[in-house]
């Protein structure tokens, strides 16, 4: 059976905030503890200003457990980034996580989502949903 891993106290240094053109890409670690989730929010907001980014892709493809605390911090972060003038796409939610999030009643508010990081970047190249220009824009073959 699976081996019980020692509980690692992750620090915010383990969270990589990458800048890809004018978008930040943040990969959430697989099983983040509460302080890590909170640290992630701080790092993201700070990086938004420092890099003058216009968007954020939050990659949660390795996350196995999305509970109400994590969901609240994600929803809050999306709102904070929006207040700063940025746009967030949450990418890569696992099927099992989507099933449980729905059953638990977690909706992530009106957060934009994408199947994977590629599609998230694609989304950010287009207009925000609800904006007057929100119509499909061709951006060449994927």
């Amino acid at each position, binding site marked *: *059976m*699976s081996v*019980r*891993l020692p*509980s690692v*106290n992750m620090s915010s240094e383990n969270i990589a905030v990458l800048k890809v053109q004018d978008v930040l890409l943040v990969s959430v670690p697989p*099983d983040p*503890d*509460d*302080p890590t989730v909170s640290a992630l929010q701080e790092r993201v907001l700070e990086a938004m200003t420092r890099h003058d980014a216009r968007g954020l892709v939050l990659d949660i493809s390795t996350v*196995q*457990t*999305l*509970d*109400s*605390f994590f*969901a*609240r911090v994600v929803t809050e972060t999306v709102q904070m980034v929006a207040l700063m003038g940025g746009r967030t796409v949450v990418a890569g939610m696992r099927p*099992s*996580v989507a*099933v*449980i999030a729905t*059953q*638990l*009643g*977690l909706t992530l508010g009106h957060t934009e989502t994408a199947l994977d990081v590629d599609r998230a970047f694609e989304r950010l190249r287009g207009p925000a949903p609800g904006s007057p220009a929100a119509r499909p824009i061709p951006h060449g073959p994927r």
Partner: protein
Amino acid sequence: MTAMNPKAFPLAELAGQPQSPPEAAFHSASGGELPITSESDIIATRQAVRNAAAALGFGLIDVTRIVTAASELTRNIYVYAGSGIVRWRSVAKAGLVGLELTFEDHGPGIPDVQKAMEPGFTTGRGMGLGLPGSKRLMDEMTIQSAAGQGTTIEIRKWLR
């Protein structure tokens, strides 16, 4: 919930076991306990419960349901009571095998359990989804709580 299509493999192996695992099985894959005293114990509980549920034969979706409920209820212990204990063990009922988790603390207690089960109700900073959400994720849930004395919550999920 009604029982149907129990999985052959884990049932055949476990149906003959006594309802309460012997002390020797205390920290086996499907039984054990963890004291909750710090935030990092939430992660430790999630890992231990994930292993226990997988060892019993639960599929990925059910394992995720159980782990998410455990995460919510363990965080409640830490946030509202400061400390407590989480226990897990395999249980059997009417030819079914399941996993039972107990969350016990001696914190302030829940003054109005019915109110606490309403989605969106919270006395803390959370979203008020922990208790009602955990109930939806599991097959059974019982709450015993008395103001000033603490709270004991039992949740069960049956293999089918």
